[in-house]
């Protein structure tokens, strides 16, 4: 299975151009972030200009990957080996990161112009840059040390961004998030210490060769799993997620829900795949938690009166879909066909959710900004006055509901098919229940918005870039449903 993560030998050496592209991929976001802090752009155009080279690096890496297949880098720095690899999953997630990051960046100037948050706003840019760089590094890293450094960098940047709104509620939520994330990373570190002490390997590929199942692998997996689950807001450890989003800025929420929690989940999946190649109970346990997450997240979102809480709780439920796929991907005795289906479904769901959730946060942010109210009741009459924002919300929620022809549907289809083939009926029921629960809370929003009896009040006009960016994201999530083979073709592992 480790070949799926690109942890195999590469056929070709990367060209010298590729080295530079890699360096640019990792360094440019930070560089431009610092520039952003210096100049604090108020218009969309300069931001767009800056995004172009970053996106270009991603495209160049993609072309390189398609030509040469898996690429590996290894450096010795002061006796420590740092290794990176560019496999199918890596390039796919790298592209998603860059595009969603660019979308959030393009959304930001309009948002800042309308909200006038004050001086601390300029810090958003470098933090965003660090976040994108750290995320890119996570997708590429192939040893535990680099992963750890990138994970922590990402976590701190994420905390910093969430705090920027400066409201007491945001600070409270941010403090809780910070403490939990830090302790989570210590748990991860202890797990890594165990691995390093027992097998003496930090490199993932070498580790995959020497690991044998046993208590050490279990304890290491448990420690790493607990730490990362805390960071990824997996079900019973999701308590910090909703308050954090409640008061954060819209582009920050979008980035966080779309990418940050996914990165921890990615590491978790990859490391468990190495440590627990044939464990029966751990993935099952995660899957059970995932089913609970689907139901619980759906119920909380259904009961919530605040739009942001609704969107944030839906993340908990949507992560549940990914957790349910764990036994199919890393469990033993799964025939190759359902395994491949689940693998594709997992990534399609992850990408679809990233795009749709970012779009949804932006649409929700637009609605809240325009109406000046954050409760669902405040949405009354918006279907007439703010049709575009609501349409974006609708497109995004079609993906979340998993209704056709969105990417959420295709992903759910693949997962369902894998589950039916392996006779996991409880998971099937959970997935279908999830659809209905999602529909229940999403259409609650629409029911309020279609209310025509609401009193008219003033609506703040929005910057066109805000709606357009969100629309593009929502449409991308939508279109990936029928064009699913494009991203999934990249997932065929590291081999050419």
């Amino acid at each position, binding site marked *: 299975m480790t070949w799926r993560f690109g942890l195999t030998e590469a056929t070709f050496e990367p060209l010298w151009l590729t080295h530079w592209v890699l360096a640019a991929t990792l360094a440019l976001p930070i560089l431009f972030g610092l520039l952003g802090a210096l100049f604090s752009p108020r218009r969309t155009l300069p931001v767009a200009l800056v995004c172009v080279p970053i996106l270009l690096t991603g495209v160049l890496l993609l072309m390189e990957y398609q030509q040469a297949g898996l690429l590996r880098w290894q450096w010795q720095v002061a006796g420590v080996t740092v290794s990176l690899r560019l496999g199918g999953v890596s390039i796919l997630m790298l592209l998603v990161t860059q595009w969603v990051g660019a979308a959030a960046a393009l959304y930001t100037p309009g948002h800042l112009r309308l909200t006038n948050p004050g001086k601390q706003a300029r810090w958003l840019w470098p933090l965003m840059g660090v976040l994108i760089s750290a995320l890119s590094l996570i997708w590429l890293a192939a040893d535990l040390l680099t992963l750890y450094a990138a994970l922590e960098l990402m976590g701190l940047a994420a905390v910093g961004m969430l705090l920027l709104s400066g409201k007491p509620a945001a600070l409270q939520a941010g403090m809780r998030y910070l403490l939990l994330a830090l302790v989570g990373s210590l748990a991860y570190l202890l797990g890594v210490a165990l691995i390093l002490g027992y097998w003496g390997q930090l490199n993932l590929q070498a580790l995959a060769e020497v690991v044998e199942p046993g208590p050490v692998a279990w304890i290491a997996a448990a420690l790493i799993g607990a730490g990362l689950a805390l960071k990824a807001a997996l079900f019973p450890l999701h308590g910090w997620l909703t308050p954090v989003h409640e008061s954060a800025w819209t582009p920050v929420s979008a980035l966080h829900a779309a990418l940050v929690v996914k990165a921890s989940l990615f590491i978790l999946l990859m490391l468990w795949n190495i440590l627990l190649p044939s464990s029966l109970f751990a993935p099952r346990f995660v899957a059970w938690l995932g089913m609970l997450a689907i139901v619980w997240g759906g119920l909380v979102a259904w009961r919530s009166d605040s739009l942001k809480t609704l969107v944030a709780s839906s993340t908990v439920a949507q992560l549940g879909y990914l957790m349910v796929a764990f036994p199919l991907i890393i469990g033993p005795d799964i025939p190759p066909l359902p395994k491949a289906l689940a693998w*594709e479904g997992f990534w399609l769901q992850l990408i679809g959710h990233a795009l749709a959730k970012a779009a949804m946060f932006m649409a929700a942010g637009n609605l809240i900004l325009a109406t000046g109210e954050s409760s669902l009741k405040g949405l009354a009459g918006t279907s007439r006055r703010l049709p575009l924002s609501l*349409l974006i919300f609708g497109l995004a929620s079609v993906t979340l509901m998993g209704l056709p022809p969105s990417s959420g549907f295709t992903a759910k*289809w693949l997962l369902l098919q894998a589950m039916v083939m392996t006779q996991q009926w409880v998971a099937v029921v959970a997935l279908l229940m999830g*659809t209905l629960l999602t529909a229940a809370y999403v259409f609650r929003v629409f*029911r309020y918005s*279609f209310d025509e009896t609401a009193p008219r009040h003033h609506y703040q006009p929005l910057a066109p870039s805000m709606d357009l960016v969100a629309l593009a994201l929502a449409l991308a999530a939508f279109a990936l449903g029928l064009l699913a083979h494009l991203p999934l073709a990249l997932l065929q592992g590291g081999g050419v």
Partner: protein
Amino acid sequence: MNAAWLPLATLATSILAAVVIFLLPEESRRLRTGINLAAAVSKIILVALMVGRVSQGYQDTFSFQIVGGIDFVLRADALGVMFAGLSSLLWLCTTIYAIGYLEGAANRKRFFGFFSLCVASTLGIALAGNLFTFLIFYEMLTLSTYPLVVHAGTAKALAAGRVYLRYTLTGGVVLLLGTVMLYSLTGDHSFASERGLAPYLNDHRGLLTLIFVLLVGGLAVKAAMVPLHGWLPRAMVAPAPVSALLHAVAVVKAGAFGIMRIIYDLYGIELSVELGVTTALAIAASITIIYGSLRAIAQHELKPRLAFSTISQVSYVVLGVSLFGPFGTIGALVHLLHQGLMKVTLFFCAGNYAEELGIHRIDEMDGAGKRMPLTSIAFTVGALGMIGLPPVAGFITKWYLGIGAIQADMYWVVVVLVASSTLNALYFLPIVHRLWFRQGPAHGFGEWPKEQRLGRLETHGWLLWPAVFTAMVSIGAGLLAGLPFSPLDWATRVAIGEYLP
């Protein structure tokens, strides 16, 4: 020669129309009307082209791969083109009607945008070449009709929308489960495949039955079969053109059409009979027919009565499908078209009465024939057709269904047909009687609930002519049933294709 562009272009016309309408500002009424009509007319032309191609023996197919083992397929086969023809013809009528109906109302952009999407989904359902594609458009239909149902934005409309979603989304989920299970069992199975699912019969009999129950159960929600019909009468709060569309073409017919696809093109009629599911389906359809008629008699308002009539009438299609034999099949297919024509007429007329005179209840209709003669004639034609009197199209349906039942040795079905016709007469004839033979406000007794003079004629021309047109087509389909390309002719062609491959 495969003209892959043809089904795709047909589908794209309405989707493009929807997109363009969403992009236009709310105020540009004329341009929107023009786009609506142009799209509707060009779609009729495209469907006519497809009819020509199919009658020459081509099956134009457009397909591409979504992921490994799952294809998106649009195929213009005889059955699909039949349904596509119905929807494109009635779309034009309903669009014209809706333009007149919503004159001066709010949120017209949203209405027409989703209206076009709804028709696009219906067309997609018609042309879907496998179950996966069918499912895509089936769910799209659910989503695109929701804004139409809650269009008024009142508490009642919103509550109706909630009920509608509860039923249809649950049905959709069940359908999804059935589809996934079928794909896991057999892989991608095209509707055009000759084999049917017969090779799986020996090993997976129970599973096949279960999948059939799931699929048909999911579809029966939209086809409004008892006890899954609860959403339909409530959805009557929608504007009249939406009700017409929901009842005559889009939603209920999508369910009925889906059941046809499952039995004829997926399982194959022999296999369905072998599994014994057709008898169960026939019983369920009969119960629905009788129950719907009985409930219709109890209604005092016009639109709910028509709604329960729809519940009853759509199950004729299901009943015909579940009769083994060519005549039952022809009856089912032709009823799909005829019921659409007649029911849309009735809803147009009901809308006209409500708009022009403010009539909602049946006891307010006394003497309306004098005030609105053309509308009332159209209504009478529709009502007589529903009862099944010659020469209106409804007669042909019941005739073929009766013969089909006798051929299939299911004599109790004949009893159901006779009983249901009697019940139909019981709830339609009093209305007709009130229209023509009672003295009412037009004769100087009392007043209309809310009279408006909408046009030079008895009502606004945009409202009147679609109703008159569909009524004329209903008669024409009955009188000229023997001509080529009539509904009956086409249904016979499909049935022959089914039984004599």
